[in-house]
């Protein structure tokens, strides 16, 4: 507190009011020059018009009845129809699988102790439970369905408590349990011959958003390790391995996924004996995985190339063997560097699951299209249905990119 600061204090004037606060912000961001002002005016007018007509259409003109008419078909496709599940109601099986997922999310919340995981767990559990209050009649949506949906909240709490008060509350246990839960989900959905409540349901009846999510989860979980192996193979000093990886990657990247899916349907059954059990869902999952892993390999290779060679040299100088250098030094840093493109690839894999229409599987998009095709009275409302589906997809994909941004922040990419 010298005399200097006392003297200069009155000389520091506050900034002019036009440069601070709301007015200053608008001057800087909206009206900094005459053409910027013109742009602001034009953009505002067109946005207001678009909002006016858009909201008017959404609230007054659009007929959203087509969405509840499809109802459960959007979620599970034809899983519950009489032909798939003769003489019994199979709707409880996907719902039980959903309970497993919410329980796992509850566990993850307890382990992570809040943050994104907590938010995701609460949103998923809350949304699932909220479906129980849909204004359907009891004949369309039975009490059992509603109770099972409501059970998502206790499942969330149970998972949380399980992770909090038992020894299962660690990241590695959750990883193991997720794999078990995925297999359990598949068993639940497929059914076991001879078990009374678990009548087998053929995979051609699996559909709706359930099918998209199953394919996406399987594809993401498998294409990531395959992509890593392919990326390492492409950078290998072993010429034969390198050549094989390049041929694989470039072939799968060069052809549209839809062609691969279709050809897998036409060609692959020919390569097996006629009585060999064939499963179009497994084939689709394998093709999507291989296709995605070729792109994944290129992303990871980019990450490996961005790594300073000093890292590997230092690791080798410290005496780490080659596999440990790759596993503990190169890969973690390489993958951290390319999280955005990897998540971008996950997102496009999720979007690509809608292409299984080509092999006759009724995913959420195809079942909607088939519904419109079969009920021409809804032809004029097709856009409402597709806008609704676009929003559903958007919620999932935006959620994925949100998580990826948080993971990046957590890992301190660009800071360290």
């Amino acid at each position, binding site marked *: 507190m010298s005399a200097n600061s006392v003297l200069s204090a009155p000389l520091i004037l506050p900034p002019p009011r036009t440069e601070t606060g709301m007015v200053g912000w608008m001057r800087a*961001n*909206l009206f*900094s*020059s005459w053409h*910027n002002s013109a*742009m*602001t005016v034009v*953009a*505002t007018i067109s*946005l207001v018009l678009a909002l006016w007509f858009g909201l008017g259409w959404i609230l007054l003109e659009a007929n959203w009845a087509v969405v509840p008419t499809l109802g459960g078909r959007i979620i599970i496709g034809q899983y519950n129809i009489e032909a798939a599940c003769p003489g019994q109601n199979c709707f409880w099986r996907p719902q039980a699988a959903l309970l497993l997922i919410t329980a796992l999310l509850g566990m993850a919340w307890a382990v992570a102790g809040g943050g994104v995981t907590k938010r995701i767990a609460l949103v998923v559990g809350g949304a699932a439970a909220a479906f129980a209050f849909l204004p359907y009649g009891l004949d369309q949506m039975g009490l059992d369905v509603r109770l099972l949906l409501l059970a998502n909240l206790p499942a969330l709490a149970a998972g949380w408590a399980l992770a909090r008060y038992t020894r299962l509350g660690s990241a590695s246990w959750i990883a193991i349990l997720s794999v078990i839960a995925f297999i359990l989900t598949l068993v639940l959905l497929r059914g076991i011959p001879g078990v009374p409540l678990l009548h087998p349901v053929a995979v051609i009846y699996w559909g709706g958003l359930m099918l998209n999510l199953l394919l996406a989860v399987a594809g993401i979980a498998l294409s990531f390790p395959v992509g890593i192996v392919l990326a390492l193979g492409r950078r290998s*000093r*072993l*010429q*034969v*391995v390198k050549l*094989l990886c390049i041929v694989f990657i470039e*072939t799968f990247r*060069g*052809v*549209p*996924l*839809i*062609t691969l899916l*279709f*050809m897998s349907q*036409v*060609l692959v059954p*020919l*390569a*097996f004996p006629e009585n060999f059990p064939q499963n179009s869902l497994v084939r689709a999952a394998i093709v999507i995985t291989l296709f995605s892993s070729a792109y994944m390999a290129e992303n990871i290779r980019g990450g490996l190339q961005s790594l300073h060679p000093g890292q590997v040299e230092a690791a080798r100088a410290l005496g780490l063997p080659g596999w440990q250098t790759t596993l503990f030094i190169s890969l973690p840093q390489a993958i951290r560097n390319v999280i955005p493109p990897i998540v971008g690839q996950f*997102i496009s894999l999720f*979007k*690509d699951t*809608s*292409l299984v*229409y*080509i092999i006759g599987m009724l995913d959420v*998009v195809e079942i*909607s*299209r088939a519904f*419109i095709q079969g009920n021409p009275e809804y*032809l*004029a409302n*097709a*856009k409402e249905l*597709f*806008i609704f*589906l*676009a929003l559903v*997809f*958007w919620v999932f*994909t*935006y959620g994925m*990119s949100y998580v990826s941004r948080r993971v990046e922040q957590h890992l301190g990419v660009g800071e360290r």
Partner: protein
Amino acid sequence: MATVLRNLTYQGIPVWRNIFVIQWASQILSGVLVVVLVSWFFVNIGNAIQERDIPYGFSFLSREYQTPIGQHFLDYKSSDSFLYAFVVAATNTIVVSIVGVILATVLGIVVGVSRMSGNWIVSKAALVYIEFFRNVPLLLHLFFWFYIVLALPPVRQGYVIAQRLYINNGGVSFPWPSPTNAGLAATWVLAAVAAVIIGSVVRRRLTQRERETGQSSFPLVAGCAAAVVIGAAAWLILSAAGGAAPFVISQPEPQGTFGRISGGFTVPGGLIALLIGLVTYTSSFIAEIVRAGIQSVGRGQTEASRAVGLSAMSTLRDITFPQALRVIVPPLISQCLNLTKNSSLAGAIGYSDLTNVAKTMTQTAPAVSIFILIMAAYLAMSLTYSLIGNLYNRHKRFIGS
């Protein structure tokens, strides 16, 4: 004693730990494994083909295809061969690819630049556009637009703008120049191309002179004027010599009770839906690429150019964007490839692209051969795009260095 000595003396690395041996053994093993698996796959397919009497080979290519193709830009009739039908389908894909790539690039650049705009509203509007369009499956885009086109009124009740533009569920029809005489028209097209070349030469010369002497001579205006004058002169001379203008404007006209449109040029509804869907979807990815490219140019470049008095527009056009292009072009090319491959979804909305026609062909022709043909066709398209991209890249790098 002897054993101890032998154990103490160095005897070289044992075979199973020799890195050279391990590497070669693993390579040979993996190579053999893959070759065995692939050949097992194809031998089995070959056997199945023989057992089930499915035809194979490429002899089917000269057979008549005998199936109609919905839309075609080349002349096609059902008695044409499989090979020609394949070429027709490939042309359909190529047309979508070229038009789509041009439109998506333009729209993508506009949105990407808007995203970087200092104007808050414009920037946020671009953000919403990008985030919404790229996070929704392309198939949904296509269905959305397709059902909007389908829900349009039929031709007789369709929208007509200024008696020229017809919009209905058959597509969009507009006036189009049609040649009166093939020879005359071809001659004028050649003359027009020559006029454009001469015009650009004039512009380049004048620009060079302007740069050297500092005298402004309006190079762009002069170049355009030269091209227009030569083109118009050729038109007049050819009209006088041939007795008729090389081209007349053909107007679209609804015919009959169902109102089939004849004359003009009709873009079929399926193609419109496909193009709108592909262009909006791909442009949202291109916009992000453009944004990343502009951000990669150092801030100092912008600041320096503003400091020497260039306007914001000129800074973007002459300083930032040319430098950003180096970062933009490689991923842009891969987006163009994606657009081409994504156009294979056209079958879902009834446009006869390569994959859709090939899918129909597998009912009457061997699937293995069709698969090989499709792969070759898409590979050729990929390689062409990569080649253009690489040439452009090299060109850019030379100027930069």
